[in-house]
């Protein structure tokens, strides 16, 4: 068994351990015997309900979102050949935010379910607009034009979001809650609604890996190796949009994880996307769950949302990564 297969197995074991921790640890203390009881012989006691109705869905959503953001981040850094690229730079996050704000302001939507489809649609529209703008020039979509279009569209949408929440106190209150990004209080229907899109995104990502490997040698080399550069890029961007759009729709914007995870994964795999993508998926799920678990215990009995925890712990970790080794050239 190769070094990388062993690494994958190791991460899988870690993920299982973190899942168990995520089910066992929370703001309400439940003894291990109670956890066992809730998992395998539930009788409807209060602890059983907490475990089955709250912690297990929360853990599953955490896995899904971590996987989506990890893989989305790796794809993004690969397609832009930029180690600082975050999946948000295509405007997906801001598009979702604008759609959510408008749904609150214009239609009075206030439930998390209500936000899902608006967020998803906003993410899709923003991504399509960025892609069209970024490919309008000669030579089709290039990393630079996409990043510029993404930055411009994001800035515009961010301005619109600010305008709406400044105008309307009620929108601000509802939006603030969404904007933090968290996996608490989301139940299984949230996951099942976005899951098909997430799975399609993962499939496209896997299909994209060999082409991405060739593209990482430069567009000219990729083309002479028989890669259809435009089609490969479009496929990758569709995958990123589906993955990050699903994550944002389910949980609101959770920053940083898409940026950090591929760097951690790359330390295991080197620059082969056929390995980097599955590693990023597992590392993403693990980091997201760890951050969420920490968020449940740092301020007991209340909780800190996972989006805040990721920023608090992710930033120093990222600085450490950057300082330890000069930023990886992709």
């Amino acid at each position, binding site marked *: 068994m190769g070094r990388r297969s062993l690494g994958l197995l190791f991460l899988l074991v870690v993920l299982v351990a973190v899942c168990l921790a995520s089910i066992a640890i929370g703001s309400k203390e439940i003894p291990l015997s109670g956890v066992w009881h809730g998992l395998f012989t539930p009788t409807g006691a209060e602890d059983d309900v907490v475990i089955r109705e709250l912690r297990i869905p929360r853990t599953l959503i955490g896995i899904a979102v971590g996987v989506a953001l990890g893989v989305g981040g790796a794809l993004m850094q690969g397609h832009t050949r930029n180690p600082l690229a975050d999946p948000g730079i295509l405007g997906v996050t801001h598009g979702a935010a604008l759609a959510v704000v408008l749904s609150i302001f214009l239609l009075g939507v206030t439930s998390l379910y209500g936000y899902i489809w608006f967020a998803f649609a906003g993410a899709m529209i923003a991504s399509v607009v960025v892609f069209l703008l970024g490919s309008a020039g*000669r030579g089709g979509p290039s990393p630079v034009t996409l990043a510029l279009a993404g930055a411009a569209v994001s800035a515009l949408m961010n301005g619109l979001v600010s305008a709406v929440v400044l105008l309307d106190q009620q929108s601000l209150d509802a939006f603030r809650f969404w904007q933090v990004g968290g996996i608490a209080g989301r139940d299984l229907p949230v996951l099942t609604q976005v899951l098909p899109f997430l799975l399609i995104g993962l499939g496209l990502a896997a*299909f994209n890996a*060999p082409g991405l*490997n*060739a593209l*990482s*040698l*430069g567009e*000219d*080399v990729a*083309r*002479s*190796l*028989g*890669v*259809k550069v435009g089609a490969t890029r479009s496929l990758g961007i569709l995958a990123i949009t589906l993955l990050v759009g699903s994550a944002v729709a389910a949980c609101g914007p959770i920053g940083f994880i898409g940026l950090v995870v591929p760097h951690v994964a*790359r330390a295991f795999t*080197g*620059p*082969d996307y*056929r390995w980097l993508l599955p590693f990023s998926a597992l590392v993403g799920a693990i980091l997201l769950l760890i951050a969420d678990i920490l968020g449940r215990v740092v301020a007991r009995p209340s909780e800190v949302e996972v989006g805040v925890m990721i920023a608090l712990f992710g930033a120093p970790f990222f600085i450490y990564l950057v300082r330890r080794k000069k930023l*990886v*050239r*992709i």
Partner: protein
Amino acid sequence: MSVRLEASSLSIGYGERLVVDSLDLSVIGGTVTAVIGPNGCGKSTLLKALGRLLPARSGAVLLDGKQIDRMATRDVARVLGMLPQAPSAPEGLTVADLVARGRHPHQAWYRQWSSDDAAAVDAALEMTGISDLADRTVDELSGGQRQRAWISMALAQGTDLLLLDEPTTYLDLAHQIDVLDLVQELHASMGRTIVMVLHDLNLAARYADHIVAMRGGRIVAQGTPGEVLTERMLLDVFGLDARVVEDPVAGTPLVVPVGSRHRLP
């Protein structure tokens, strides 16, 4: 002696500017062709168009008689390989992995690796003499070794046509000779057809069967090194006052520039 690659009234441009202007060129199978010319004469652009990296504004590139932009890009990639100038590899990529990526046109998504692939990679590393570097990362290699690694990747692609854009850029003279010796060996022992852009006229004279001199997007002279590298041509194409003498080692033309401070009596 058949024509493998052909440009037929080929024009290529960026925006308004025409960089290659209705150019005709035939590359004969089994030869080494060197394209020379002053900076900005369109030689790299021509090479990219021959490797279908740039679309033709008008005219066509024909590969074995078929119009190259109508062929499936993967089919082209099995016959024609191209190494751009100073390619860059992602950090941490090993030599073996780089060379393995040359197998891309022979792989399907569901079949990423076969014994054919392994054999081609081993043979390519062997051929360029870097088998012992297989597990090193590309970024820790010296310039000459790195160029060998990239050429190995192009070899693993298994194409019998190879386009090289200034394969000696950034190399010192010893490594330039080293890389060009390798190119000549590929040609001699495996019968590959090679088209390369070269800056150094003396090396072009020594290593090419056929020299194409370009200026302003057109071919101004082509033929054997002896036919093309004349004092007259150097003045016309490069605006260079030079003497051409016989290379004491290879017998090919040797260009000796005059320069403004060394006016001959």
